[in-house]
């Protein structure tokens, strides 16, 4: 299981745990193509009844933010607490939001 120059490409796996919930990223795997990746995802990530639906996405198709942009992208939100909806009084009748 060592890595070789001919290793299969990497795929990201998303699992929907039940109807109505969103697909969530749960990990990645190596597979030769999309169909193969789907089979592998089924075998590797849904063995314990984790899901009712699967997505696989070639990792190469995911465009990620750069770690060195972290401060510029995310720090400015740090002091804008008024963006959190925590200044409203929620009537009891509404219940859990």
């Amino acid at each position, binding site marked *: *299981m060592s890595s070789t120059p001919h290793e*299969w490409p990497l795929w990201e796996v998303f699992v929907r745990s039940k109807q109505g919930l969103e697909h969530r990223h749960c990990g990645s*795997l*190596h*597979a*030769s193509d999309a*169909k*193969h990746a789907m*089979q*592998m995802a*089924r*075998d*590797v990530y849904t*063995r314990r009844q984790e899901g009712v639906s699967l997505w696989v996405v070639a990792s190469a198709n995911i465009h990620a933010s750069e770690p060195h942009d972290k401060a510029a992208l995310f720090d400015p939100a740090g002091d804008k607490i008024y963006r959190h909806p925590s200044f409203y009084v929620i009537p009891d009748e509404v219940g859990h939001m």
Partner: protein
Amino acid sequence: MDSPQLPLLLHLADNCLVLGQRNAEWCGHAPVLEEDIALANHSLDLIGQSRLLYQYAAELIGKSETEDSLAYFRDAPAFRNFTLLELPHHGPLAPSGSSSRDFATTLVRNFLYSAWALGTWTRLAKCGDAQLAAIAAKAVKETLYHWQYAQDWVLRMGDGTTESQLRAQTALEHLMPFTQEFWMPLAHAEAAQSVGVMLSHADAQAEWNVLIDEGLLQACLKRPTQGGFVPSGNHGIHSEHLTYLLSEMQSLARAHPRAVW
């Protein structure tokens, strides 16, 4: 105690247990991590199927018979699995049972067997024995996945590189004669009739041929001409490989016969 379906239950259970044990030999040794887990999943499906069948068989036999006594305390001549399923994961000319495993042999065997199993479970899901029908209905779902998985790999290997095609074709030449046993008069023919199912029927064979021929055509593999040695594992006459497989599988239970785990 005389349960006419018993020989059929043992045949089906032995098929599942022996192939499950064989394929489990890949655990920790498969070419890649993902396939390792996939093959272990297959084995767990197969062993799960065999457990349900042994439990039912033990219930019918009564006395002190259990699923464990059927799996671990019968010797090779009592096993009724098809010979195909006990063969090691390599071609006929390998020097010993511990020779390195060939992934193509594993997948071609699963391809040939799961097509048979799919037809068999589908028929049995509608049989006259309610408990066996329920076991079959569960097994159909698992087997459909095994079939798709094996078919997909046979396609990838057959229509892959020169090396992978050679390996797949070689495995096919080696294993295909063993499938003749699927369509020979079965030792448990009367048992199958007792639940109202014709398992080695010409229709079943025709359906199997369609699945196999389509799979091989897509995979650019040549179906070997029929003929050669016709095995009879189903009648209890096995290859030498079964005894090695069983001794490994049964040694723990036999060394500690009252152990609980």
